[in-house]
């Protein structure tokens, strides 16, 4: 916080002298200005426009320029995440790793171009964009931690399956406001799809856990 004050405080003082009254607006005014821009700057059907609105957790998790979460805010995000958890009707948290492998490498689904929703049966899991997957796989991102050997390190117990499922469904229950999308809670993936990703991560036969 102190650093922020130093960064912005000095120019504010300078500008006050140089330009009379023009200066940085306060946080409340900025929020109003920016939210009006969000409202005015997109063309969307009412259903698609919902994607622009922030839920409570997203509001809390939009800290500006390195501002820290308070303990209370972190606790609220965790609590909301816990409350959001839904599990597949079957109760089975570990699906088919082969389906999960495909999903993990699928970055498509639900994008909007000229008002039209991408024509897809289901959304991709997006994993490959940000995470290292099977050993030796080159075309993978590094925004998130490597998942190579995920199950080798953790095993495939029921407890690990549940933890893994929940971290995909809504990882903010464990790391509030992390970069990881709340893939189940936001509706990007279905609970069944997530069970396949769980299998891809923890099944000893999955390429992610191969010893190569």
């Amino acid at each position, binding site marked *: 916080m102190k650093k922020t004050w130093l960064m912005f405080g000095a120019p504010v003082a300078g500008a006050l002298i140089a330009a009379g009254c023009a200066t940085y*607006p306060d946080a409340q005014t*900025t929020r109003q200005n920016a939210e009006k821009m969000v409202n005015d700057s997109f063309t969307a059907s009412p259903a698609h426009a919902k*994607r622009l609105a922030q839920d409570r957790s997203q509001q809390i998790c939009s800290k500006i320029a390195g501002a820290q979460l308070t303990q209370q805010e972190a606790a609220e995000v965790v609590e909301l995440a816990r409350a959001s958890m839904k599990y597949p009707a079957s109760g089975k948290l570990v699906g088919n790793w082969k389906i999960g492998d495909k999903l993990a490498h699928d970055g498509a689904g639900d*994008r909007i171009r000229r*008002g039209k929703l991408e024509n897809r049966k289901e959304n991709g899991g997006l994993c490959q964009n940000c995470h290292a997957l099977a050993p030796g796989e080159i075309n993978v991102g590094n925004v998130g931690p490597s998942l190579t050997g995920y199950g080798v390190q953790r095993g495939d117990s029921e407890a690990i399956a549940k933890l893994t499922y929940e971290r995909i469904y809504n990882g903010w229950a464990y790391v509030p406001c992390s970069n*990881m999308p709340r893939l189940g809670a*936001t509706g990007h993936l279905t609970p069944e799809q997530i069970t396949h990703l769980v299998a891809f991560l923890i099944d000893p036969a999955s390429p992610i856990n191969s010893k190569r």
Partner: protein
Amino acid sequence: MAITRGGIAAVTFVYLALPAAALAQGQPDDPLAVGRQMLMEDNPGELWIERGKQFFYEKRGPKKASLEQCDFGQGPGKLEGAAARLPRYFADTDKVQDLESRLLTCMVRLQGFKESDIVRRAISPGGSSGSDVEALALYITSRSNGMKVNVTLNHQKEYDSYKAGEYLFFRRSGQTDFACVQCHGEAGKRIRLQDLIHMTDKKGAQEVASTWPAYRGAHYVVRTMQWRLNDCVWQMRLPDLNYGSDYAIALTHYLNYNGNGADIRVPGFKR
């Protein structure tokens, strides 16, 4: 068009033929830098500058007027260094405008084009010869080549726009929970193999502020900052961002101001 697809494909092939193992490393002495340098030195986007210049001086639109009376902030028709200072406040529209929204204003007011017509064609299909707006944006920015980005905050609306841009950079929404900062807030990050610019760092902001419009290798056309933002928003699963919107102007304002001091060199080259 003087561009032959074969020529570009050959260059792209060299670029892709670098060893795959090197691709994965992304170290400072990245062998990819060699390929990038080659492309920078022989950037097909250069061809768009001349087309943009023709569009600028040609009498076009229902009013059969050129853009010579368009004021980009340095006075009518004065292009030298104008793009380096954008976005900025314009009294005649009472708005903060970036290069592309200002261009729209002039094409509507001076040349009599219908805004919806310009906007519809502004972002051209890949592999096409590009749109008038793309070529014009490149030509006008090229007149600041070799100069330093120098965006200033004076008018209250400039302060407001800059701060709104900052707010939006960190504003998470949608089913991916993404704001800009989720991908552009750390050094050395990639989406798959694509390097992500670290925009909360001065050097990263400078790269953004000084390299658009850019030739986009994968699309065979020159792309503008508005296109870049549109494409990000699309990947974030948000609805269609309007061309020349205040949201785009504010984000550009935030990034360009933070990128002050960079040497402008357009067209940039992007994968």
